[in-house]
């Protein structure tokens, strides 16, 4: 083929690759098509130039083509989306974000001042603080996504219901149900944030997966900002405390909560804004840690199997295991969220399967001993909360293991695992609501 033709094909290819949802291999596929079409047309007597024009025309307008790829491969946008928007459009969300971050910073101070006079129960601040911050994040998304008023009212009503319930409950001082509410309420509110994030469109599995991705990236951004904040605070104290030791302390009690609250909004905005400049971080971390966790879990299973349970299990240990299952679930979910749904990744899938199975076996060991213990002492609020979460995670992981095994045997597409996880979100939401709203009355607010 002539040099001009090669140049033309090269230009066409790079135009196609401008579409962010078009992967290199897709461009290969399309280019192969183009070349074959050109060869056929040339064989029919056309000149190279004519053949190129007709072949390109038949493949379709480049931007329509890339739009079609974007529709089919939306998940790729997550990895490399960098839409070039006009300047004003980009600046406006920054202003919105900063305004809302400021609101969060102020509200958290309100929460602090409100709870200060009633020092009797230390937990009232912990119980309520998420109510002052996370709905602000939900509001931010409602504004950015231009949610309809009915949906906004719906979410507002849900938040109001939680706020009223949590504050009307007559908790016994030092009640463990109060601590459970303080832990679970932020998660319940996170689902409210999720609803706002999805603009109220809860039905689509792909959109829910976007929210799961968002959550992972947000956690990482928040941790990074917190690290930076800690360095800043540490240095400030070190530099200024020789001059004004008392003043520093009182200033920091104002600065730290407000900073922590506004960072929640800023982190969310960052996830949205970069989405991503670089490859997403959560999948990279999971790629590193999945094999390590698989090894750790397998070793632990053998250790428990050989040495038996050295001492009686207690609730704290069960909570450790809840946390472990959550981490394993996170590793699987974020590993899957980044995978190319059509490529086979046998080795990583096998490692994932090992990690999940080891976690399940380990957890079953704990559950067996836990049931023995409940038989002895009966149910308490803490045990119900820890056990319920454990069972919910266990069911999820058992099915996940089954689906990964089927995936390895080529019986199921990878999308099944994803759909299972997105379909399971309501179960988590339901459980968290149960702990916040029903568990305290069931156990007499003790």
């Amino acid at each position: 083929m002539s040099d001009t033709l090669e140049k033309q094909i090269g230009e066409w290819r790079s135009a196609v690759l401008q579409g962010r949802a078009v992967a290199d291999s897709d461009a290969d596929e399309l280019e192969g098509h183009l070349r074959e079409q050109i060869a056929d047309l040339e064989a029919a007597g056309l000149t190279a130039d004519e053949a190129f024009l007709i072949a390109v025309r038949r493949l379709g307008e480049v931007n329509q083509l890339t739009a079609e790829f974007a529709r089919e491969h939306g998940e790729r946008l997550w990895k490399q989306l960098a839409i070039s928007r006009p300047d004003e459009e980009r600046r406006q969300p920054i202003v919105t974000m900063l305004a809302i971050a400021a609101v969060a910073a102020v509200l958290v101070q309100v929460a602090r001042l409100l709870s200060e006079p009633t020092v009797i129960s230390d937990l009232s601040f912990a119980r309520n603080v998420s109510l002052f911050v996370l709905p602000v994040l939900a509001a931010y998304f409602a504004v950015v996504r231009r949610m309809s008023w009915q949906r906004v009212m719906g979410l507002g009503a849900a938040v109001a219901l939680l706020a009223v319930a949590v504050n009307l409950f007559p908790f016994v001082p030092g009640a463990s149900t109060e601590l459970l509410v303080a832990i679970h309420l932020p998660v319940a509110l996170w689902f409210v944030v999720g609803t706002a994030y999805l603009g109220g469109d809860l039905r689509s599995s792909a959109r829910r997966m976007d929210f799961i991705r968002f959550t992972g990236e947000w956690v990482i951004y928040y941790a990074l900002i917190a690290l930076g904040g800690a360095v800043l605070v540490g240095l400030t104290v070190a530099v200024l405390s020789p001059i004004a030791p008392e003043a520093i302390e009182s200033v920091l009690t104002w600065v730290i909560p407000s900073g922590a609250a506004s960072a929640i909004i800023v982190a969310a905005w960052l996830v949205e804004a970069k989405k991503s400049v670089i490859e997403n971080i959560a999948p990279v971390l999971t790629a590193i840690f999945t094999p390590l966790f698989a090894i750790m879990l397998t070793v632990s299973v053998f250790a428990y199997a050989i040495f038996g349970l050295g001492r009686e299990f207690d609730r704290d240990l069960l909570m450790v295991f809840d946390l472990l299952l959550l981490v394993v679930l996170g590793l699987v979910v974020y590993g899957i969220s980044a995978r190319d749904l059509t490529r086979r990744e046998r080795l990583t899938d096998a490692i994932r399967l090992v990690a999940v199975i080891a976690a399940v076996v380990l957890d079953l060991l704990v559950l067996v001993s836990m049931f023995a213990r409940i038989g002895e002492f009966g149910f308490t609020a803490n045990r119900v909360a820890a056990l319920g979460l454990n069972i919910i995670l266990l069911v999820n992981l058992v099915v996940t293991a089954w689906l990964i095994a089927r995936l390895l045997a080529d019986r199921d597409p990878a999308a099944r695992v994803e759909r299972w996880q997105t379909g399971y979100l309501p179960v988590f939401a339901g459980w968290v609501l149960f702990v916040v709203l029903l568990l305290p009355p069931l156990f007499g607010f003790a």
Partner: protein
Amino acid sequence: MVSNIDKDLVAAMATPLVLAILLEGSSYGYAILKRVRELSGGDLKWTDGMLYPLLHRLERLGYVRAEWGSSPEGRRRKYYEITEKGSGQLVEHRKQWETANRTLGGIWGPTPSVATA
């Protein structure tokens, strides 16, 4: 000669048509399109490029399996092969189209040349 087939109808036909072509044997994009043209006698206007997102969607749904191979000239080429699930889906599509055919045929009668006007 039949006038060009309506866009929505083409979209509805695309999945069963591609699956049916793959049922004849595994194939690749360009050859699938050539087969489409051959079967429709050129009446089915299809923007060639749109075939690929469709194939990728079928792959994601597990109806086809794809594998990179190479053409006789040594170029990379992606071959598609129908899966069991895909053949099941095709049977389903076929039933629906036969119903549609029967229904419309019942009212139009067996006149193959209405379009020559």
